[in-house]
């Protein structure tokens, strides 16, 4: 995990992506900010419905109707050094399409159906290459073989003409990765790529991603709900809940001594080999998006909820000792707020 270089590759500032549904306006992403440095791995973690996938899709401009990016800025530094605000460009415009696949690659959760069942894996990989790099058929084919070998796909040249349904989940995910990285983008967005895989394949894929990050010098935005994965690969972590960032900061800080009660709750859910083996879940369920609790969104499930404060006024996201930020009244003055009980370190 390297220190971030000077200017960040991607700077997301107060991103808002809302969905107009028959039941009312759903604010899936409600003012999310974070930065991604060059060759840095940022993990966005949270329960389902926290808006982490929508955030990833918003960056890639893949938000489906009736969702739309309604506010905020997403400054992204292109290869040629210039910076562009992704939030300002219409998703279906030519400029955005030139970025997708060329500057930013993306892989998805279900390898089972992430590839077209009726096209060969070769043709699906070559498509991006020919589109962005203007290669001829032969050159694109070579580039595809090269990409597959880079992702450790056995016997790449011979199996270019095989179909996805002939491959295992892990191999299909490797094809997806090869496809996303074929044009050597500077940022890879991975939306829970390993959730559907068994543990050993998951480990191989994570190890592969780190290796590729090193070789290609690319940044990774890794969406997951699995803190174990975060621990393994994350340089920095962003914890989201109900469309907002609860806590963000370097992985070591967040995992070592989580400040926000929600982060602490999540960490308690991870089975600790040495621990007493008793898993303790966070009580209650994630509120319905149309029924956001007043004040702090987590107030309804927070064991340290301070009545009168947490359930009335929403805490601000405040910076703490430089790199970390937390959104909790416990830390509202920037210092650990001592409660009657123990300091939650």
């Amino acid at each position, binding site marked *: 995990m390297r220190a971030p270089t000077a200017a960040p590759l991607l700077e997301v500032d107060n991103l808002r992506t809302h969905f107009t549904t028959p*039941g009312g306006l759903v604010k899936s992403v409600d003012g999310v900010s974070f930065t991604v440095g060059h060759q840095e791995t940022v993990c966005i973690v949270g*329960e*389902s419905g926290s808006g982490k996938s929508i955030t990833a899709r918003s960056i890639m401009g893949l938000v489906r109707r009736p969702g739309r990016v309604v506010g905020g800025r997403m400054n992204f530094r292109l290869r040629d050094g210039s910076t562009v605000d992704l939030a300002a460009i219409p998703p279906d415009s030519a400029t955005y399409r030139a970025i997708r696949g060329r500057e930013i690659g993306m892989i998805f959760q279900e390898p089972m159906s992430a590839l077209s069942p009726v096209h060969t894996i070769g043709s699906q990989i070559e498509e991006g290459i020919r589109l962005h790099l203007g290669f001829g058929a032969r050159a694109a084919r070579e580039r595809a073989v090269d990409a597959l070998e880079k992702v450790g796909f056995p016997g790449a040249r011979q199996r270019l003409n095989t179909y996805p349904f002939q491959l295992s989940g892990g191999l299909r995910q490797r094809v997806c990765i090869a496809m996303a990285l074929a044009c050597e983008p500077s940022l890879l967005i991975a939306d829970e790529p390993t959730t559907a895989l068994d543990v050993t394949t998951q480990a191989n894929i994570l190890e592969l991603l780190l290796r590729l990050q090193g070789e290609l010098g690319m940044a990774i935005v890794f969406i997951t*709900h*699995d803190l174990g994965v975060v621990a393994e690969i994350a340089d920095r972590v962003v914890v989201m809940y109900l469309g907002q960032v609860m806590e963000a900061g370097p992985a070591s800080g967040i995992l070592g001594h989580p400040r926000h009660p929600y982060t602490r*709750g999540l960490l308690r*859910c*991870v*089975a600790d080999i040495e621990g007493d083996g008793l*898993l303790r*879940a*966070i*009580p*209650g*369920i994630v*509120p*319905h998006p*149309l*029924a956001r*609790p007043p004040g702090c969104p987590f107030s*309804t*499930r927070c064991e340290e*909820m301070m009545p009168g404060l947490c359930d009335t006024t929403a805490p601000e996201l405040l910076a703490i000792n430089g790199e970390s930020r937390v959104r909790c009244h416990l830390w509202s003055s920037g210092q650990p707020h001592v409660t009657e009980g123990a300091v939650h370190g």
Partner: protein
Amino acid sequence: MSSATDTTAAAPAPAVPAAIAAQESRLAGASEWRLIWWRFRRHRLAFASGIVVLAIYVIALLADPIAPASTEASKPQYTYAPPQMLHLFRTTDDGWRFEPHVLGYRVQIDPRAMRRSFVTDPDTVIPVGLFVRGDRYSFLGLFESDLHLFGPIEAGQPFFLLGADRLGRDVLSRTIHGARVSMSIGLVGVLMSLAIGVVLGGLSGYLGGLVDSAIQRTIEIIRSIPTIPLWMGLAAAVPLTWHPLAVYFAVTVILSLIGWTTIARIVRGKFLSLRNEDFVVSARLDGASQTRIILVHMLPSFYSYIIAATTLAVPTMILSETALSFIGLGLQPPMVSWGVLLKEAQNIRSLASAPWLFAPGVAVMIAVLSLSFLGDGLRDAADPYQK
């Protein structure tokens, strides 16, 4: 390892808006049919079509009282009479008042052109009302009556909202009576075809292998059997004393024995794709018998196809009735059905000077359209995979 499980000590969930909570709890408890009904209701177009279909069947059932005149009531002086406008208000010297009426005709016979020409006669006013006395009929064989929903207050007056045909019979009444035959005569045949189709299609799709190829080849053989000679042969084999309607009914039932091929092929295709779905494999692993798997596990997952196929088989039944009448098989005059009425209207003479004779054609269109939309809506509503 998401933490969606409840625990006892949880603080009370906030007051989620009543409507949503209520809906979610009801959804959880509702049976599949109720689910289908709710989703169907949301499909506005299909719901409206459902109402239209229901209305057609009610009219067909109560044809006698609803139709202003009986099918045989022919009035020589009104052959090919054009439709009369229904006026709701009458302007008399003391202002206008609500009095629904139609205007009478002035008739001249032109023997050289073999027709009667009609001019609306503004001074003969024929008052019209609801629940009037008219031609006698036996209501579903239960009792005799001459009460009609609407019609001329003074019985016997010319009342042709949709004009008259070549024997001076009211086209509206005959179209209404035609509905009774066209919408029902083929139903048993259609249902039988469906039953056979689902069973054979299911077996063919589920068992595969030899059974599948045998059934597919049988389908190919059956599909190439010409129905026309069957019609001619069966219609001639039936004894003369049978009423023509009974003959038509019997033949449609017999023909349903070869009418199941289309639905069988659809069901087979669906079964093939469902066969190796996880829930089927697991049901097999649980030791469920094959018939139980087919009926309990697989069938519910495509009620939508069966429902849609049923509702879409009815329009095909109606349309084939009209085609059969056109080539001179099936129902013939003096029977009254949409097919027969259309056969009599489908000529240049009617198109040129009596276009109102095509009212049954419009009725066929409305029936087929609403049934198609209903079928489509039901398919979407009953499809568990539909979002």
